[in-house]
């Protein structure tokens, strides 16, 4: 319970700080953010959009790990965990796409312009969309579990390429706060604190959602087993 209260208060503070702290050209106190040239207030999306993409990667990697676990042990619990993680990853992937598209409307002028970032996240959505299509097309439980475990491993391996590599090989308009030093967002300590707390908070929310969903699926599965007996 303590963990949940801390999470609730923490993310509320992150939201308030991320949106309401003033942006000034030369921040002198800890409660001021630097102006990002060319983006101004639109730079505030970094506190919310990047964590969604981050959680999306974590979730897909979790799905991959549980996929491997399932293939090794053939325990249905790992299949439940793998599909739950993939589902949440898909949700956060959609959130990242939508928040990105709204931001791009006001920065680049159109909701969608096939920037390498947008293209790669779109392909990622297609890959995981196919994962759910694959699952829903197989009736036999064990076959479904092992096939989707294999698919989630292959799909999980492509995630780093689509999120981290391809958008950096092809020239993109997408700002890269950490890796690219030139003409991109430079984070001052205040920004960094808010950003990292936001990452932590989003990850905690993801873990909470994952936990709830797994517990519920487990109950559902137990109930199904009882009915079959």
């Amino acid at each position, binding site marked *: 319970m303590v963990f949940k209260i801390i999470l609730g208060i923490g993310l509320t503070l992150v939201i308030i700080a991320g949106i*309401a702290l003033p942006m000034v050209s030369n921040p002198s106190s800890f409660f001021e953010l630097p102006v990002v040239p060319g983006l101004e207030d639109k730079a505030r999306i970094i506190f919310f959009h990047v964590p969604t993409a981050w959680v999306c990667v974590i979730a897909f990697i979790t799905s991959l790990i549980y996929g491997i676990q399932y293939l090794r042990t053939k325990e249905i619990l790992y299949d439940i965990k793998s599909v739950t993680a993939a589902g949440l990853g898909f949700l956060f992937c959609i959130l990242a796409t939508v928040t990105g598209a709204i931001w791009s409307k006001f920065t680049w002028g159109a909701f969608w312009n096939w920037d390498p970032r947008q293209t790669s996240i779109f392909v990622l959505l297609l890959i995981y969309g196919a994962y759910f299509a694959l699952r829903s097309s197989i009736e036999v439980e064990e076959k479904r579990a092992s096939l989707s475990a294999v698919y989630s491993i292959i799909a999980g391996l492509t995630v780093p390429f689509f999120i981290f590599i391809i958008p950096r090989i092809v020239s993109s308009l997408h700002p890269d706060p950490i890796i690219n030093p030139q003409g991109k967002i430079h984070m001052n300590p205040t920004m960094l604190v808010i950003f990292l707390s936001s990452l932590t908070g989003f990850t905690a*929310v993801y873990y909470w959602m994952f936990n*709830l969903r797994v517990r*519920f699926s487990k109950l559902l599965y137990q109930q199904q087993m009882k009915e079959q007996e």
Partner: protein
Amino acid sequence: MEFLNQNSLYIVLIITVICWFGIFGYLLSLDKKIKKLEEKINKE
């Protein structure tokens, strides 16, 4: 209208906080419900 234009940042803030409270409350209530279900099923 002018009020909206001048305070747009705070309006965004309020809406975001309301959304977050909604999600948080929903997760809390789900947590409680699942806990109850687990107890009920384990008793059977």
